[in-house]
């Protein structure tokens, strides 16, 4: 008898609670587009924020609502973007791949250090101590904060202490842009091949004392490049909206500060630029 009462009581309770759950499910139901889950599956789950949204789920929601285009996710592959576009029946958008570019070529073999820095091995920390030991005030300090911050292993430090960006892996998330204390990184479409790899704003040959590949603001590259290159603040500025880009300007650069970035060959320097043959470190300065 006791067992029957127990069964009946528990059974009754189950029924009541089940009814409440059913009612709650009907009354409080929130419709969620099932496509969001599908789209999220197709996204890379990197949650890097490069699209400008907090993560991949919000980006998927925005995609389904039509607020963004699949191409705005710089991390996903071409095929994935196309798959999302096909699934949602929308345009893929302008898939102009962006990559991070470093505006410095002064590795330890060409740029000298003025002072020796011993402290927390981080660019940001070194930059706060008298700007770091580098002779050039604008140059890369080479402690690799960008290498550490990159979630996609796209940045590696070369033997001369300069970060090298793997354009295949780079997703233009912008973390390196933010972390660099000298503001040397910027995001550019891969199609921008003419590149000024220097940020020195001083005019004249004095800077060559500190770095052999610095821009001396001689203006030779801009001389007959027409609208393509103008000199601003003692640095050449490439106007990428002026087509066609051409390799001619790099040929006149005496130091090799302006380069042509080739997908296979890397940075190509002009014939006029002095050849850098030093393999080891450039000797430290006397002051």
């Amino acid at each position, binding site marked *: 008898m006791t067992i029957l009462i127990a069964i009946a009581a528990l059974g009754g309770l189950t029924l009541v609670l089940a009814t409440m759950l059913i009612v709650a499910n009907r009354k409080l139901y929130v419709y969620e587009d099932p496509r969001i889950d599908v789209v999220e599956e197709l996204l890379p789950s990197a949650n890097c924020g490069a699209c400008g949204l907090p993560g991949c789920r919000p980006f998927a929601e925005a995609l389904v609502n039509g607020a963004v285009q699949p191409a705005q996710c710089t991390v996903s592959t071409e095929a994935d973007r196309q798959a999302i576009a096909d699934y949602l029946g929308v345009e893929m958008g302008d898939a102009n791949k962006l990559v991070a570019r470093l505006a410095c070529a002064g590795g330890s073999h060409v740029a000298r250090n003025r002072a020796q820095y011993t402290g927390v091995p981080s660019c940001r*920390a070194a930059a706060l*101590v*008298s700007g*770091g030991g580098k002779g050039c005030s604008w140059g890369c300090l080479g402690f690799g904060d960008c290498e550490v911050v990159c979630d996609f292993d796209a940045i590696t430090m070369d033997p001369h202490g300069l970060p090298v960006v793997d354009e295949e892996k780079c997703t233009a998330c912008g973390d390196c842009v933010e972390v660099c204390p000298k503001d040397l990184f910027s995001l550019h479409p891969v199609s921008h091949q003419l590149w000024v790899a220097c940020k020195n*704003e001083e005019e004249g040959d004095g800077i060559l004392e500190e770095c052999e590949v610095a821009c001396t603001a001689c203006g030779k590259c801009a001389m007959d490049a027409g609208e393509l290159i103008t000199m601003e603040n003692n640095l050449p500025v490439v106007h990428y909206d002026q087509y066609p880009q051409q390799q001619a300007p790099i040929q006149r650069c005496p130091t090799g500060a302006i380069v042509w970035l080739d997908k296979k060959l890397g940075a190509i320097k002009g014939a006029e630029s002095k050849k850098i043959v030093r393999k080891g470190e450039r000797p430290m300065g006397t*002051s």
Partner: protein
Amino acid sequence: MRNLIKDIFTGRNGSFRHGIHPPENKDETNGRPIRQFDFAPLIILPLAQHIGAPSELVVREGQEVMRGQLLAKANGYVSVPLHAPVSGKIRKIANVPTIKGTMSPGIFLETFPYSTQEVLEGTPVDVNTASAEEILQGIQAAGIVGLGGAAFPTHVKLKVPEGKPCEYLMLNGIECEPYLTTDHRVMLEQEEDIFMGIRYLLKVTGAKKVIIGIEANKQDAADHLEATAPDDLPVTVKVVPVKYPQGSEKMLITALTGREVPSGGLPIDVGCVVVNIATTAEIGRLLPHGRGIQERVVTITGSGIRHKGNYLIPIGTPLRYVLEQVGAVDNISEVYMGGPMMGMAAANLDISIVKGTSGIVVFAENTVDRPGKVYPCIKCAACVEACPLMLNPSKLGILAKYEDYDTMAERYHLMDCFECGACSYVCPSHIPLVQYFRLSKSIVRKRQKAQPTA
């Protein structure tokens, strides 16, 4: 007696709590009178020598200027003008190197070699007739900033907000930084300027009492000021035990009055205004003549210097020229602008003396111990015992290592840290704590700038 019992309970012992006592090393220069320095053939003047907006140029290239002439005017309220430290010709207006390691706009001024170097006089500000507002304007027009090292415009600091009465005017003659003897010599040699400056400051702040705080290692300066103080000035000289960082504003207030400035607050919140003693002397010297600041006292010392001493150096004198004149040894390894505790290491000898340079400490090779290998934190709490602000540097250091900057700022009061370096000094594991905090503070500030609402 009551004070003694209070001191025992609060652990203050006539000073502030915690702090350290590094070797003073002041003996070599504190007996040397201030000497006028030679005029360098080329003066390099950055336009941003103070905290706030850089000064705005009023001269052009090629112009001939007289010593004391206005070169750049104040650009806004938190800014001060810049005056010519020498008579000469402006050779170039271009970027100049600064202690921060960046290039910033500045002036290259070529000194006339045969000039008498007479100083131009301006409109005098009379202490008896000028109103408080006029004196404040006069202080700004003279280009005066905190000469202790921070270079914060003095007139901004002196502006007492309404509803907050200023009870004490405190003159900071502590000079707790090792090696430096600038303020010591100023107190011994420029007492008239100091008392003149006090008259101006009393009028501006409306304070009723003046306390001059001096550390016990400068007893002669304290005696001298006490003996020469005019009878009509409400001045008391208070000698406090030697301790670092007592020269910090907040520590000084605690040491002299027992009051504590709240976190994020200003000295005026506890009824105090603190002014550096050299700044006071400068106000007293310049305002009666309407002049601008064009030189300052700098202690040059350290194992790498042959002719150590206290020099009156024109602002903008290149560091390289200074080192040549005082006979720096060939194998110098470290140069600090300011003292060894809170000063900045100079990575470049082409920078120049600015208004905030209180000393130049140069060490020769192999005369300083390099910090050894960095070991993990052993949680000995030596840094907690040392921190004058009662922070927990150990915890902060661990958080900094894991880059948890938001927690540091929100839960462990990172932004209260004023980078005195006491924690790094005592750390047996050689953890560069203060460098971590400086980095963390800069990152937190950058983040706050990016999202002002958060």
